[in-house]
């Protein structure tokens, strides 16, 4: 009863505040740089710090001097010096040690450059200064983050102020990948409080800002329905669903895409509102003969990204990375084979060795010589509805850009559950099935244009009745007959792969934490201290190749899924003799 009354009293006290303070989100932007200077000061000495020589459209500095004595506090501050927009402050250092001089812009747009002087001596000349204050109320234990949104992006700092001149807290790099993460120690709702975001000197790039309500309240059980680490009231602000931990359906959790993570940070590349598709490409280098080396051409990444951009109008974004060099093998096989190397063994040692956290989200492409056997001239082999692919152009003396691009897009299509659409018999490839998945257009490009697309252009999937597949059935009537399996239903290529849930960790389903996170697993990745303390994302995901039994089981499930979709075994896909691989065999 006593605890109930206590909770009720707390609710009544906090209710107005909770209604007033809500989450805030600022989309990716340039916040400007701070002057953030470390300086040694001696106890008892008088120091004057000032900004001079201000330049810019409307330059206006605020200068704070901070000191860390088992916690940061403000020693001195100055906004306008003698009525001018420059700043100056004189104080006696209370003790000896390192202090911080922080110079920021008073408001958005009032940045520029300024020189910093100490006791009349020039320390820094024409330093860029900026930073943006955001004015809103917050509650104790709310979190504040700035997450980089450009690859290799900027190092940001985040400050909480009670007013323009009263410092409360700051953070540089407590969050994932050294992003700033602050948990408010006090409620601030008087109306003068502000959060200031800006960059560490010398860094570049953009960041998004997220202020979120306390997620693990001591009063309320939960305000995060999908348990993805973003409060229910924040998610609509960002355009996300409070009931879905992966709002855009790309198998990368909203939390990762909004806040980022250590190592390869998904916030720098991904968007939580667009599907992002990642591929790592490793390639084999011949020890002596550079002409045999299988290195993708330099423009492949841009070309492949452009294919996806065009195909989907930007709703699916391909991020391919030409990564590391592999040792040379004449033949690579899915599993062991005489005279060849096991793809999975090679992958185990080479796949994202420096960034294991990205393994559950990346497709793995191996640019190799030949697959399966020394006599095979197949250009590639890929898991159907999977995440591994081999590009094997050993029979091409010097594969052209078109041949490489077409093969890569083709094999990646298999990973995304696209098959050859019946075009498996040499000399009988459909003319109207205008897709890179059709051998007729794998190298030459759709309509022999040199451009590769799954189904784009005049023969795209505008309507089922006129889709390439529908025409394809008519086209084949003469030699295959209408009863050709798989041709009965409309099955546009481009419509299918967007909704796939892939099993990246090869553990038998696509809802297992490797791709789309399950309800509880999202929470277990956080380590909240005693309800309400700071939560820290645990980004590193250990990777293990699954054992044979599990892979067989996985193949069995995939086979059932494909058969239920009308796919034909032996034509649309194959299962290896040992039952551990389900693949599409390419010519």
């Amino acid at each position: 009863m006593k605890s109930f009354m206590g909770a009720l009293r707390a609710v009544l006290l906090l209710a107005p505040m909770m209604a007033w303070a809500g989450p805030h989100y600022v989309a990716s932007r340039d916040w400007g740089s701070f002057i953030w200077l470390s300086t040694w000061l001696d106890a008892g000495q008088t120091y004057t710090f000032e900004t001079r020589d201000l330049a810019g459209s409307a330059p206006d500095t605020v200068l704070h001097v901070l000191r860390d004595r088992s916690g940061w506090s403000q020693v001195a501050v100055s906004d306008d010096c003698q009525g001018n927009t420059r700043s100056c402050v004189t104080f006696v250092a209370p003790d000896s040690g390192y202090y911080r001089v922080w110079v920021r812009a008073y408001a958005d747009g009032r940045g520029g450059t300024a020189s910093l002087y100490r006791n009349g001596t020039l320390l820094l000349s024409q330093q860029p200064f900026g930073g943006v204050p955001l004015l809103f109320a917050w509650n104790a234990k709310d979190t504040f983050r700035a997450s980089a949104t450009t690859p290799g992006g900027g190092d940001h700092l985040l400050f909480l102020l009670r007013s323009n001149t009263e410092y409360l807290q700051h953070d540089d790099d407590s969050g994932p990948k050294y992003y700033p993460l602050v948990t408010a120690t006090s409620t601030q709702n008087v109306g003068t409080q502000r959060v200031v975001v800006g960059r560490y000197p010398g860094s570049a790039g953009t960041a998004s800002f997220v202020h979120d309500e306390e997620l693990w309240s001591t009063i309320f059980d939960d305000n995060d329905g999908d348990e993805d680490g973003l409060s229910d009231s924040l998610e609509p602000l960002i355009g996300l669903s409070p009931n879905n931990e992966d709002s855009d359906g790309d198998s990368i959790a909203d939390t990762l895409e909004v806040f980022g993570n250590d190592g390869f940070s998904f916030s720098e590349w991904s968007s939580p509102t667009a599907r992002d598709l990642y591929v790592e490409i490793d390639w084999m280098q011949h020890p002596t003969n550079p002409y045999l080396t299988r290195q993708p051409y330099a423009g492949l990444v841009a070309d492949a990204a452009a294919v996806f951009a065009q195909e989907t109008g930007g709703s699916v974004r391909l991020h391919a990375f030409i990564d590391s060099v592999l040792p040379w093998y004449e033949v690579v096989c899915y599993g062991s084979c005489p005279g060849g190397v096991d793809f999975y063994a090679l992958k185990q040692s080479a796949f994202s060795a420096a960034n294991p956290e990205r393994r559950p989200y990346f497709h793995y492409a191996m640019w190799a010589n030949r697959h399966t056997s020394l006599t095979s001239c197949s250009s590639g082999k890929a898991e159907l509805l999977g995440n591994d692919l081999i590009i094997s152009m050993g029979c091409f003396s010097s594969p052209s850009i078109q041949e490489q691009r077409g093969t890569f897009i083709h094999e990646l299509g298999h990973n995304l559950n696209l098959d050859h659409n019946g075009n498996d018999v040499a000399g009988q490839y459909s003319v109207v099935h205008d897709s890179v998945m059709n051998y007729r257009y794998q190298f030459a490009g759709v309509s022999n244009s040199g451009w590769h697309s799954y189904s784009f252009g005049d023969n795209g999937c505008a309507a089922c009745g006129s889709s390439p597949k529908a025409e394809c059935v008519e086209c084949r009537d003469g030699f295959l007959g209408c009863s050709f399996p798989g041709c009965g239903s409309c099955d546009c290529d481009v419509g299918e792969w967007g909704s796939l849930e892939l099993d990246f960790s090869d553990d038998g389903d696509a809802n297992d934490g490797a791709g789309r996170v399950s309800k509880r697993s999202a929470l277990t990745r956080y380590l909240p201290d005693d309800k309400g303390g700071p939560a820290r994302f645990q980004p590193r995901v250990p990777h293990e190749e699954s054992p044979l039994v599990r892979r067989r089981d996985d193949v069995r499930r995939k086979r059932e899924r494909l058969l239920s979709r009308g796919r034909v075994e032996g034509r649309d896909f194959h299962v290896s003799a040992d039952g551990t691989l389900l693949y599409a065999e390419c010519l």
Partner: protein
Amino acid sequence: MRARGDQVGIGSVVLGVVLVAAGIPLLVPRHLLREDSAAVSQREPNPVAPLETSPVPRKDSPEPVLHVEQVQGPKGLTVEVATPAPVTSPLTRFAKDALVPLTPDEEALLREEHVDDLATLVTRTERAFQDASPETRARQERRYLAALNLVAKLSAPPTEDTHARDQDARYQQALAREKAKWRDLAPEEQARAQETFKEWFFQGEQKR
């Protein structure tokens, strides 16, 4: 047979001399000398070379820096592409981009520190300054300040912001009018009044 072999040998020597004279190398790739490379690898399968994994990175540890650029695809599409940054010495690269000539301190710093980006240079010199002994503190501070000044020289100059300029003009006009009312106040009170007015003005601007 043997004589024929000798003839072949002499012919090879003569051909070799001619080719060398013509500047054509005689080195034959090792794999071409193998009778059956697949068979060789079958007998002695190459071990899968384990790749090195990097230790836990520090904030200032050298990471492979990606050069990210917008690439124009067909039909006006633009995609973001990351490529490894070009390998040139920091001094050459930074000196080329600097708006004004570098000082000797800055040049010396770039010769000593091999970094790909300025934020890392600042972090590293800052850490060295904060870890310095009383004897080395002055030198480390000079290096740290040189790094920060280098940042300024390599930063793009502030761009013209007409909105900010218009806003500032409005503020200065309003401030001048207000100041007339504070003429009789003590300097400390005038400063406080200005601070209050500034806050009021810019909070109002934010809501405009």
